């Protein structure tokens, strides 16, 4: 739970006063995180925690109600052979599939997240993006994952990017807003930091690395920079903001490295699905395999874990 949150009207901060970021320094810090050796009960704890943080995702042009229902079934029944597993945090789909997901997840404590704002490109008039957001919320989305206008950002039109986020946040109503920076298109870590600060000040509940539709998607360096922006904001205002790396995290080992980085940057309070998510699909099965290996002491085969 966060401390007192001050609700003031969002104002674009002076982005030129945001700290610079040194890429080599960031990479060296990330390399240190990756030398942490997480074993035994602390490993099991991390695997279970990572599982509980997954936004199980399907965002394909070829998605159908059948596909989405199948994914929701997996979300609710990860692995019959292991009872007492935590459930994933959410299922993430396109707005037209929100209703399907809602029905398929009835009775489960799993959120429905919807992308919106002309995901993944964001190249649509604001009116359309707002309407899409409202529709998704009406259909029952608990969370909205929006994309920022990268073109405008790269042009330096920060006010416009900012105002869009503020407007989308308002259209969300009570739904939580995740703001996707699409770090793979921003180019430098300096821009990632500035975009993070911008999105946080505009009212983001979560900041998110990527749409997962381009390379590179989430990486540890960009995630670290974003976590540091979240940390600085918390220390200055007392308001907590969540973090979601998405795309490219397929292995349990990587997920654990992200959790190490999270823990050593923000501390215990963020180590919960309330404040951290993995945007992933195949990660779940690798976590299950590793949990099974920890339980039995024996390396596992993919044949024994359902692929929905």
């Amino acid at each position, binding site marked *: 739970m966060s401390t007192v949150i001050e609700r003031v009207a969002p104002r674009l901060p002076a982005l030129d006063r945001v700290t610079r970021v040194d890429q080599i320094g960031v990479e060296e810090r990330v390399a240190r995180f990756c030398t942490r050796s997480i074993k035994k009960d602390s490993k099991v704890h991390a695997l279970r925690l990572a599982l509980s943080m997954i936004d199980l995702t399907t965002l394909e042009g070829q998605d159908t109600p059948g596909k989405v229902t199948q994914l929701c079934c997996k979300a609710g029944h990860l692995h019959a052979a292991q009872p007492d597993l935590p459930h994933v945090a959410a299922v993430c789909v396109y707005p037209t599939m929100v209703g399907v997901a809602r029905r398929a997840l009835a009775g489960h404590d799993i959120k429905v997240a919807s992308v919106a704002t002309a995901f993944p490109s964001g190249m649509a008039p604001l009116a359309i993006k707002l309407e899409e957001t409202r529709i998704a919320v009406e259909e029952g989305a608990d969370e909205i994952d929006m994309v920022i206008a990268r073109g405008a950002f790269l042009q330096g039109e920060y006010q416009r990017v900012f105002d869009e986020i503020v407007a989308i946040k308002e259209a969300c109503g009570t739904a939580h807003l995740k703001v996707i920076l699409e770090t793979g298109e921003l180019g430098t870590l300096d821009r990632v930091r500035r975009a993070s600060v911008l999105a946080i000040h505009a009212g983001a509940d979560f900041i998110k690395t990527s749409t997962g539709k381009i390379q590179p998607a989430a990486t540890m360096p960009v995630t670290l920079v974003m976590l540091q922006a979240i940390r600085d904001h*918390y220390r*200055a205002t007392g308001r907590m903001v969540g973090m979601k790396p998405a795309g490219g995290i397929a292995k349990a080992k990587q997920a654990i490295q992200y959790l190490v980085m999270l823990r050593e940057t923000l501390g215990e309070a963020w180590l919960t699905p309330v404040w951290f998510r993995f945007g992933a699909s195949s990660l779940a099965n690798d976590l299950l395999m590793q949990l099974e290996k920890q339980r039995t002491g024996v390396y596992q085969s993919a044949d024994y874990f359902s692929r929905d």
Partner: protein
Amino acid sequence: MARPDTKLRFDTGWQYAPAPESTDHARIDPQYGLFINGEFVAARRRQHFTTINPATAKPLAKVAQADAGDVDRAVAAARRAWQRSWSKLKPAERGKYLYRIARALQERAREFAVIETLDGGKPIRESRDVDVPLAAAHFFYYAGWADKLDYAFPGRRARSLGVAGQIIPWNFPLLMAAWKIAPALACGNTVVLKPAETTPLTALKLAELIRDVGLPPGVVNIVTGAGETGAALVDHADVDKIAFTGSTEVGRLIQRRLAGTAKRYTLELGGKAANVIFADAALDQAVEGIVDGIFFNQGHVCCAGSRLLVQESVADEVITKLKDRMETLIVGDPIDKNTDIGAINSAAQLAKIEDYLEVGQAEGGEMYQSGSRLPEAGYWCRPTLFTGVSQSSRVVQEEIFGPVLAIQTFRTFQEALDKANNTPYGLSGGIWTDKGAKIFRMTRAIRAGVVWANTFNKFDPTAPFGGYKESGIGREGGLHGLDAYVELV
């Protein structure tokens, strides 16, 4: 800058389970002799001393105590080897021996890393990822110079000096042995090396390795002992060159003793480096640089960034970030793979550090330490900051050689530069700024042998290292590192 009601909690919830590196494959003999003329021999007077693991204070092995007679034997072996075999070999063949040493060190890397950690107290992650790979790389680098010296000195031919006496410290035992032995051998010299008395083991394992790769007997000799052994080596008439890394105090003594002799010498001594952070720096990475600069290797680093000079407008922000970062530093058993800060090398060194902690507070400084839990046995010191100190404070002037950082603020470039230079030392310095022109202005004006810009404590066999002023004489590493081991004709 930080609201008082905000706090990041690192000490609760998910903690890391112990992850000890396995040590059963690392062989430490109960007792070691001296390595003279290609074999291990007993010291003349059969005296031994014990080396312990500073994390547990438990003994690891007994090590021979070399006296002046033993040193004499070793020097004689080195002299014979130089005259009869080493200087007669084709330079390319000399190089091949060094390549063999490098390769064997890579093959035995894990064993060396484990023993380095057990003997000296540094975290296994550092031994494994930094010390041992750099040591192997040093041998690789100098192996290549052996047959290329004609290209290193325009207009001059290089000749070997003869026998080099080398005395190394306890903070990077294996790496310092590599820094000394590799260039000496590459240039055609032979060596008598004395490791520090608290960390003799990896030098002795290196002796085993050297014997195993077939280096001609007497080319490298290892004599273990303390101050008396070192003095015997410095004083020995048949040594042509002395190389010493250690404290400025002892360096001064050595320089005096060598006066009037024809011996060449290089000294790599203490430091009190300024790490300068400007307001336009990449602040999070600068904070990491502070940590690398003073807490890495428990602060047992001659070039440690032990003075932080931070521009006043960002001082609070930097110190807040630094304190947050310090809470995530794990002080603990060095053999655990997650340990960031290991044991202080000896009871004596811990006493010196604790003395300075009292001095600093007595001088009016405000001391802050991280909340790290410390193990029961062994020698430990938490990462420590001093604020409210100034240029005249002893903790700002004197080398503490522990994880203790003295923090001051500055307002202008000139002030930072003046403070950085206002010291008898001159080994290293750091500057953090996003502005290139400022970097070059600082590197031009700071009187230190190594300047790190937007980074800290980076070492490479190709990059020369050494100090100005009382931080020493001469350079090690790189092309410039050859100078110390040749005579130019």
